[in-house]
């Protein structure tokens, strides 16, 4: 499946969520985005944002301090 990518590494709070919201807004319903982050807080932040905005968190993984989230635009 083709997916968009957003690299939010190095950004200071709240900019990762700001960039994520902007990117998702530009996408079509059903499209999938991979978000890459390096802040441990993203483990709580990204699911909370998805729940709040109605987007779907398809999966997440952590590897050597890098966090990857796969999100589907729902509405």
């Amino acid at each position: 499946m083709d997916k968009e990518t957003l690299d939010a590494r190095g950004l200071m709070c709240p900019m990762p969520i700001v960039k994520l919201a902007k990117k998702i807004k530009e996408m079509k319903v059903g499209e999938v985005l991979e978000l890459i982050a390096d802040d441990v807080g993203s483990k709580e932040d990204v699911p909370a944002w998805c729940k709040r905005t109605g987007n779907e968190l398809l999966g997440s993984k952590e590897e050597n301090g890098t966090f990857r989230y796969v999100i589907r635009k729902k509405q």
Partner: protein
Amino acid sequence: MDKLLIISTHAEDNPEKATLPFVVAVAALASEMQPTIALQSMGVYLATKGYAKLVHESSFPPLEDLLRSFKEGGGRLLVCSPCMKKRGIDPSDLIEGAVVVNAPTLVKEIGESKAVLTY
């Protein structure tokens, strides 16, 4: 859309506490909420022209950038009238979009908001 009211009472006296309301407000805008920031006490300086660039707490984006994101995202900025008068700040000293208010407007905002935070 849920409304959020954030009352901010700090400026250069506490750059971290001056920055946090804008961090939360910008995150709220990105989370489909409608935030209003009400500046009181020392916080009113943040609405004066050129002041925001003086505040940059480490580990946070510069306040000037957060303020720009807040305004561009549609955030509303209220400024306490008596707090301005006490400090000799004239409405003409304020940045574009800042709205001078007294307690009744704040009370109305409190009543309409889902949550009220104070810094």
